[in-house]
């Protein structure tokens, strides 16, 4: 079982890594690259804290073999914004107090981004937002404010409300 070269674009940056065939994308992100924003928990695609975007779509990095993302583009929470340039979702989560312990938040924000990007410009219902986030668990029970934040970010991203 030989190591192999993996070429992958993470947050717009090309990486060439030496990986074992059984490593998951989560193991590569945290163990090889040292990006700790993507969290590790259930390792069975139940909880969603490991969510990243694969070509813009939310997937569970804990059960995605790194060898299967050769040549593809990954976005992690580190690639979404920084303290000076928050993504509208990040800004809305802060404004709405949607973060308690914070462990699920990278997965929440990336799940929400994947969902909102599917229908740009359309304001989703609260029920649609809840369904979109169903694969991402918050054990602080903070869903109400998380849904508020995603709804507000959707409005802002659709250009219906000016960014403060």
């Amino acid at each position, binding site marked *: *079982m*030989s190591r*192999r070269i993996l070429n992958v674009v993470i947050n717009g940056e090309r990486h060439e890594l030496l990986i*074992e*065939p*059984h490593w*998951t994308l989560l193991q590569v992100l945290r163990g090889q690259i040292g990006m700790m924003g993507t969290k590790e928990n259930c*390792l*069975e*695609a*139940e909880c*969603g804290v490991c*969510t990243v975007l*694969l070509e813009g*779509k*939310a*997937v*569970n990095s804990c*059960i*995605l*073999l790194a*060898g*299967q993302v*050769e040549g593809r583009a990954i976005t992690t929470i580190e690639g979404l914004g920084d303290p000076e340039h928050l993504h509208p979702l990040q800004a809305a989560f802060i404004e709405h107090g949607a973060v308690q312990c914070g462990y699920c938040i990278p997965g929440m924000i990336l*799940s929400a981004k*994947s*969902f909102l990007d*599917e229908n740009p410009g359309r304001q989703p219902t609260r029920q649609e937002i809840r*369904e*979109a986030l*169903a*694969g*991402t668990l918050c054990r602080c029970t903070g869903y109400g404010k998380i849904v508020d934040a995603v709804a507000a970010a959707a409005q802002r991203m659709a250009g219906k409300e000016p960014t403060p």
Partner: protein
Amino acid sequence: MSFDLHRPSSLAEAVALAGLFGPGARFIAGGTDVVIQINRGKIAPAHLIDISLLPGLAGIAATAEGYAIGPLTTYRTIERHAAFQGPLSALVEAAAVVGGHQVRNIATVGGNIVNASPAADFVPPLLTLDAVLDIAGPQGDRTVALRDFITGPGKTSLGAGELVTAIRFARLAANSATAFFKEGRRKAMEISVVCVAASLTLDASGTRCVSARLAVGAAGPTALRPERAEASLAGQAAGLTSFRDAGRLAAEASSPISDVRASADHRRHLVAVLVERALTRCAERIAGARP
């Protein structure tokens, strides 16, 4: 735990690799079942053959008879497919309850079928559509009905090195609709306690059943078609009485187990309730679509 990962770029190459490695090889697409099974030690393949790069196996095509779904089509694609939002909406309803968005963005329909879980949500709607599978393999191509393909929990008639290449079904007759209902212990991210799909065709007046096809998941070793329940509806007035009778017959036809999710009695009760509910929803949909 380790294996070699192979990434063929053609169907012929994938089948040849599977033939070369024999029983030590497994195909992988989205990986949402395979990787978990490897991590749990349920399977230990020496070779994984990644079929996600094979051309022409993802997407939904309209055909002369109906539709052909590529095995690499994701659940999210099914959910959002415009042509399935009408009479075939049971496909959308079932696709929409497979895992969360993250799983549905990558998990494939073909993978869910060959994984052959008795609780697979997408299998009952396909059974009510009399879906057939096109299969390619080292011995050549063949076509098999989905109901003959799944033979037991985790078991299929797939031979060594064989791959599903298409899932096909015919268009529905006029005055038809489908519906899917699932009962779990919570609303999302749940393995079905029982799931039921129905496909109902009414006569031109919209009052009498011409034919019905039912399928029940998670209430037996494989998803089943309760044939006596289906036959009981032919020629009957569409309504509570005939739908409730069909539900009772479907419950009698099922052979559920008691497990951590529910007792066998509770499952049987759910079959009756969900069959009645699914048929009622079909009738409402047919009425709603009438000019």
